[in-house]
């Protein structure tokens, strides 16, 4: 290699390292594991909900030996958080400004908010018995301490239209009360602060800093006030930050363990540090280029993709290792470049089939899987390129292999070569696997609960649950979401959702709801209410007469007559969103992509089927369970994804046919991996372990490697002296992969654990099956030739 080429390699490497160092951002965004919006409306809703104001709300619960201390601390904390650049809003109470503004907004429009069914209900409200009851209630209220205020209102609102609004608003408050100007829990044990973040809950860098600052602020307050103060928090950002922290530390540990295990293996068979460093160049280059390309394309890398990428070293090192062993065990004095040329067809085909097996993933609806597919494709292709171009020059730096390498290769060749003396056993192997599959696979259990893919500190989960329970009503995890093209359409849709759910409540399928409907009705419904009131031509005279009969002075209600003639424009979403009441809207209405979402929270949903049926014909309306809706999305996409995985398998078969143009080598290359896939799934089924998409993904990778094993063995079967080195090369590949995925199996994250166990078991089986099938195919070929 001349100096210019060497310098070019170094410059490119340094540039890529600098790029990665500057740009590397690991994300734990759950939306990456949800189908993109083009594939499913439900998937779109789920994905967008995961990164909406819905998920950006935090609940802070402050406890102390005495409630006044907790209230004081919560007040100070709320004040400090209002100044934080990452905090969009803070609510610790209903303040006077909000109440004054609510009066100004609602009072002039009170007649528009009388009834959900104005045509039938307003006449009843205005009928004489109801008016008489209103008059009696007015007398009762005039005797209360608040009589002065009520006296000024009753003359313009004799049948309590505004009071109806106030009662609805009061019923919509979460399970909190106000004490000394501060939200406290109903049991009076904790002060509560609600806040919304500006950034995504899954932006772990910003959220990590916010959580850190929040804790620092609270510790300062607790230090000053004392009184046994303690803070508990709930929010999606807490899980995101915890997951990112866990993954980051595990990435380092897994990478270190993989490196050490692989290094030990190389010292055994290669016998030198230089040999190990040289074969590490292609996979490291693959990881570096794949990371850079992913950052350039996606802007960031998902945490699981990054971990998957570190495992890629176990696959990509196979190519360089294959070249090193064949060169080192060659006794003819072949140059490195010549060995590379000889092995090139096998290496290229092996890399292509690996990339092809990941190609199926690229066609799934899940951005994270597409990202992984891209990462694997770029990484493997780069590793192959470096193996074929740079590595031959570097082989000159590697000392001769130790004698034990040659001995091991010869021993393996003898052992597997002896298989041809057991033709019956060879024939029985695929048959036995087939029978096992028939017996075990029907019992395979699919697990779509993707929440099981990430495991969190139980203390964190318990804390978050405790805080949620303090502010939520029972069954708060279930809600109905509707999507409107704009704010006005969303409010109108919300009216219809409310109407349908009221029917379910009346039928006993639901206890109650909390929604935007307590704050805002559609303009149409407001106009219909007003029209229904004005349709009663003699209303003022009747009110005056009935109230007079109940002891009110006749003529007192002239302001009501004026109100009937006034025409206030209906209250709109814009009116509310530009008022101090905007914070109250956040849980109920927010932009979701190009649309506006309205959320109705359900309480005591006894019959989800009845709810589903009630909203079935409303377009863009879904019943979701916060805890399981992601699972519904995965269930919907499982079959599609499996089909795409089979497409990947078809690509691999196509490549093998293109290369060999004969069925025996194709079967010899492909069958071991197919058998392994069946056997691993059967084993999981027999072990009672549920299977999820990550198990399947792991199998794709194993199958890709299994096909590589088949190709390398088929290609070396024609050259007797290559069989031993190939078997040794594959043994090292198998063991390095087992090392890499063995470490994944020890991960605390269930997702990585699933990958580790599946891939670890699968790759060992691949190593065992590949020679068996190749030898079996060889025997078959000899028999056919003999027969022919």
């Amino acid at each position, binding site marked *: 290699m001349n100096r210019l080429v060497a310098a070019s390699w170094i410059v490119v490497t340094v540039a890529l390292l600098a790029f990665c160092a500057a740009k590397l951002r690991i994300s734990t965004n759950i939306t990456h594991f949800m189908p993109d919006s083009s594939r499913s409306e439900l998937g779109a809703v789920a994905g967008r909900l995961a990164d909406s104001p819905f998920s950006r709300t935090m609940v802070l619960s402050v406890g102390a030996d005495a409630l006044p201390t907790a209230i004081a601390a919560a007040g100070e904390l709320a004040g400090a958080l209002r100044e934080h650049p990452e905090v969009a809003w803070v609510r610790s*109470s209903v*303040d*006077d400004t909000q*109440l*004054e503004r*609510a*009066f100004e907004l609602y009072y002039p429009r009170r007649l528009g908010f009388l009834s959900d069914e104005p045509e039938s209900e307003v006449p009843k409200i205005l009928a004489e018995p109801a008016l008489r009851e209103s008059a009696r209630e007015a*007398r*009762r209220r*005039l*005797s*209360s*301490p*608040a*009589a*002065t*205020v*009520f*006296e*000024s209102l*009753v*003359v313009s609102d004799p049948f309590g239209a505004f009071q109806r609004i106030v009662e609805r608003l009061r019923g919509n408050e979460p399970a909190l*009360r*106000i*004490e*000394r*100007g501060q939200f406290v829990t109903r049991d009076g044990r904790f002060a509560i602060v609600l806040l919304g973040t500006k950034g995504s809950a899954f932006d772990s860098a910003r959220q990590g800093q916010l959580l850190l600052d929040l804790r620092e602020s609270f510790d300062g307050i607790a230090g000053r006030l004392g009184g046994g103060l303690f803070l508990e928090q709930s929010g999606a950002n807490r899980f995101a930050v915890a997951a990112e922290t866990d993954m980051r530390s595990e990435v380092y540990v897994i990478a270190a363990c993989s490196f050490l295990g692989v290094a030990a293996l190389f010292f055994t068979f290669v016998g030198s540090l230089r040999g190990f460093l040289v074969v590490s160049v292609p996979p490291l280059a693959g990881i570096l280029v794949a990371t850079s390309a992913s950052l350039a394309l996606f802007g960031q890398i998902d945490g699981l993709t990054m971990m998957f990428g570190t495992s890629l070293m176990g696959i990509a090192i196979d190519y360089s290792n294959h070249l090193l062993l064949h060169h080192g065990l060659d006794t003819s004095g072949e140059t490195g470049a010549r060995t590379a040329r000889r092995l090139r067809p096998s290496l290229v085909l092996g890399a292509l089939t690996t990339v092809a097996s990941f190609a199926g993933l690229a066609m799934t609806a899940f951005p994270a899987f597409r990202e992984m597919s891209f990462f694997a494709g770029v990484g493997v292709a780069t590793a192959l390129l470096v193996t074929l171009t740079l590595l031959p020059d570097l082989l000159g730096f590697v000392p001769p292999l130790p004698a034990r390498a040659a001995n091991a290769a010869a021993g393996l060749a003898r052992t597997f070569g002896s298989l041809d003396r057991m033709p019956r056993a060879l024939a029985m192997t695929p048959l036995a696997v087939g029978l096992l599959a028939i017996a075990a696979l029907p019992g395979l259990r699919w697990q779509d609960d993707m929440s099981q893919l990430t495991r969190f500190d139980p203390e964190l989960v318990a804390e978050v649950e405790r805080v949620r329970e303090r502010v939520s009503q029972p069954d708060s995890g279930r809600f109905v979401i509707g999507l409107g093209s704009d704010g006005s359409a969303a409010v109108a849709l919300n009216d219809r959702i409310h109407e349908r759910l009221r029917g379910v409540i009346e039928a006993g399928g639901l206890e109650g709801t909390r929604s935007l409907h307590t704050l805002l009705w559609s303009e149409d419904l407001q106009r219909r209410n007003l029209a229904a009131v004005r349709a009663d031509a003699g209303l003022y005279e009747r009110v005056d007469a009935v109230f007079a009969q109940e*002891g*009110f*002075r006749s003529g*007192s209600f002239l302001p009501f007559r004026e109100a009937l003639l006034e025409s206030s424009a209906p209250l709109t979403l814009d009116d509310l969103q530009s008022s101090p009441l905007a914070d109250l809207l956040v849980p109920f209405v927010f932009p979701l992509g190009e649309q506006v979402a309205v959320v109705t929270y359900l309480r005591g949903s006894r019959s989800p089927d009845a709810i589903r049926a009630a909203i079935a014909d409303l377009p863009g309306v879904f019943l979701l369970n916060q805890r399981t809706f992601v699972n519904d999305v995965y269930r919907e996409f499982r079959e599609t994804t499996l089909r795409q995985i089979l497409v990947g398998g078809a690509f691999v078969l196509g490549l093998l046919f293109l290369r060999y143009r004969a069925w025996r080598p194709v079967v010899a290359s492909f069958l071991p991996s197919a058998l392994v896939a069946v056997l691993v799934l059967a084993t999981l089924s027999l072990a009672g372990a549920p299977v999820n998409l990550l198990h399947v993904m792991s199998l794709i990778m194993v199958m890709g490697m299994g096909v590589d094993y088949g190709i390398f063995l088929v290609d070396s079967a024609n050259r007797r002296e290559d069989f031993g080195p190939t078997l040794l090369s594959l043994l090292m590949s198998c063991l390095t992969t087992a090392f890499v995925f063995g470490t994944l199996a020890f991960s605390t994250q269930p997702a990585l654990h699933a990958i580790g166990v599946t891939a670890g078991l699968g790759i060992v089986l691949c190593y065992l099956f590949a020679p068996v099938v190749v030898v079996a195919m060889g025997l078959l070929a000899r028999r056919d030739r003999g027969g022919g």
Partner: protein
Amino acid sequence: MRSRAACALSLALGSCLVASGIAWRDASGSGALTLAELMTRMASTSGVAAQFREVKELKLLVAPLVTRGTLYFVPPDRLARFTSEPGFSALVIDGSVLRYHDDPQGEAIDLSQSPMARAFVENFIVLFNGDREGLERVYRADLRSGEEGWELRLTPRHAPLDRLIEVITMRGDESGMREMVVQDSDGDRTTTTFVAVDANRAFDPEEIDRLFSSGLPLRDDGP
């Protein structure tokens, strides 16, 4: 809106304020009571329980409304006013907290953060702390006394109280205060008379908890 409600509540509580101090007597027996003496004795009372009858003459109604109830004062800063007729209502001041509710099983509304309510609670504390200067910052106080009794007129100095109340007049004799009249700016008038006054009421912890934590009258008072 909430401020206005708090303002109204404060007017009603005005009667509580003064009524809770009805148990004193002019120490000299001369009848020449001074405001300073009145304030001092308010501050030194050990505890008060009294029943009241309130008559509201509202321009909106042909006939007056009559309300009956009980009030309690526990020094230095706790006061509760409950009505039993025509219906239940409760106003409770506990330190800086002011709560109101009209359903024994219902949730109380905390008015502590309302500027008006805060001002009122501060006035309440000022009065019972014997802070004459503080009281005179809010009201113009005019005390007259003679052989037949005394009369204290409190005229609000500032908004928003002066827009709602024209004058509060308290009348009493040697046995204590007997009547309070709140004349509203709009012509309405509320007259409260006090009976069955216990000027040396001692409250046990259970009673204090019921009155000020649960917001309920003592058991022999209903509701």
